[in-house]
């Protein structure tokens, strides 16, 4: 019989899930025996979440009105905020990476701005942009843009000169060189930036919804905590972690789609 290797991906995934299940069971057990008001058992949290968001019935499309108030606005903010961050970050990163003069002038300023933690800007954003969606999206974008920008910048600078020479002797236009050579060559670095950006985006999403808001996961979290609805509060926390997990899965799927060559290539070249 062949021995199973701990390093094989299937076995590792199975082990990961097993650990998660054991921990949740332990939590369940502790919560049921402890009977603390603040730490309800996972089964009750899930039931509360289901009741809150998915109990509209099949004929009404499963999702409740509360889902549209609690979750949908957050998803919109996150997606729009991160997409803008990616678009602007990649564009600026390419500009900086390709035009040395611009980089020389702007780089110190960018490092200074990057050092600002996003939530610090919340009070200023409130004053400048008000309490609407724009303010929250702007905050998410501001926090998420840096990893995209700097990763793109450094990946673009690392595009081998020989690739650019090949493009030049093939008489490519600059647009064609950008889309067919520079961006593909830098894609792995850019993608790493997008991953980090999405994580930051979720943090800023919640932070922005904790103040002066009327909907979203952050608002719901705050609201349920203030009204001592601890079951609901936990349901919001779980919803956030599931949101984080789904975005990770989504990004991995995208990466498998666009960067398949890169994984294979790294395995061969390294």
């Amino acid at each position, binding site marked *: 019989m062949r021995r199973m290797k701990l390093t094989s991906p299937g076995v590792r995934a199975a082990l990961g899930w097993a650990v998660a299940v054991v921990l949740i069971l332990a939590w369940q057990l502790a919560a049921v025996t402890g009977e603390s008001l603040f730490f309800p058992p996972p089964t009750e949290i899930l039931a509360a979440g289901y009741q809150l968001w998915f109990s509209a019935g099949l004929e009404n499309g499963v999702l409740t009105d509360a889902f549209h108030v609690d979750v949908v606005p957050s998803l919109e903010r996150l997606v729009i905020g991160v997409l803008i961050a990616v678009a602007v970050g990649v564009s600026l990163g390419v500009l900086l990476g390709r035009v040395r003069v611009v980089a020389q002038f702007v780089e110190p300023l960018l490092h200074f701005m990057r050092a600002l933690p996003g939530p610090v800007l919340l009070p200023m954003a409130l004053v400048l942009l008000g309490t609407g969606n724009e303010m929250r999206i702007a905050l998410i974008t501001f926090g998420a843009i840096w990893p995209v920008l700097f990763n793109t910048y450094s990946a673009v600078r690392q595009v081998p000169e020989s690739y650019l*020479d*090949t493009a030049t*002797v093939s008489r490519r236009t600059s647009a*064609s060189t950008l889309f067919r*050579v520079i961006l593909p060559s830098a894609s792995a670095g850019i993608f790493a930036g997008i991953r980090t950006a999405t994580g930051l985006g979720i943090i800023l999403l919640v932070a922005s919804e904790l103040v002066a808001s009327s909907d979203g996961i952050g608002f719901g979290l705050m609201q349920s905590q203030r009204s001592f609805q601890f079951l609901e509060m936990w349901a919001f926390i779980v919803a956030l972690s599931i949101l984080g997990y789904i975005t990770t899965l989504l990004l991995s799927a995208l990466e498998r789609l666009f960067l398949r060559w890169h994984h294979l*290539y790294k395995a061969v070249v390294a």
Partner: protein
Amino acid sequence: MTEALLVVDGLRHVYQTEEGEHVVLDGLSLTVNRGEFVSIVGPSGCGKTTLLRALSGLLKPTSGTVSLAGEAINGVPKGLAMVFQDYRGSLFPWRKVGANVEFPLLGRVGAEERRNRVRESLEAVGLENFAGRYPWQLSGGMQQRVAIARAIAMRPQLMLMDEPFASVDAQTRSDLEDLVLRVRELYDMTILFVTHDVDESVYLSDRVLSLSKSPTVLTADTAVPLPVPRDQIRSRENPVFVSTRSEIAQLIRRAKPAGLYGPGEAIPTTSNFAVPVLR
């Protein structure tokens, strides 16, 4: 009938370095006729790559003119293809072999014609079954064949090759040499070929140009009156091959900055002196 395809006149290039100006090419003039196979040999660091980069428009020379088919060129001319020494760096790892060959044709040639040319070019280098692989899944020699196929697909009037076989083993190298000769027949190409290897230059060429050390000038223009088609065994045994080879090897050994040591002059053996490669 000989018709000049590439005319280089008074080409001079000076690199600006921290230690000051470094004159690499010091007034190089040469002509390559249509259909000719011309090799350039010269000591390491004399500026062969610099010369090809200037001819292909990758580098703007300090002074001098280059014209292709009668037209003065500025930037990358039409009808020119280049095969780089470093095939790994010149093939895109995210494009499959077929897509790499197709790359220079994108946006210039219709889809149907592109497919045909890719297939034909890959057939010419014997890689028709590898279009769907990634280049890094192939051996070094096969990768260099992909680079050659990409150059052929452009249907160039002039193909520049910069030490294309320097990093493959000897057997692969002979195979690739014959492949280039075959492809040249097939597509009626003019080839300007840079190499370190004196044997290779004689085996492949109609003419061999030798260079001095930098500041670099042309030291000789040697015709190779070796019958065609060339054959790896018979051509190399031919007395003409042997004598031409030693003539060129002498030229490289006698190379000094901006010229040649005289026949009776003592040649210094120290410093970074290039030893000609003989097989």
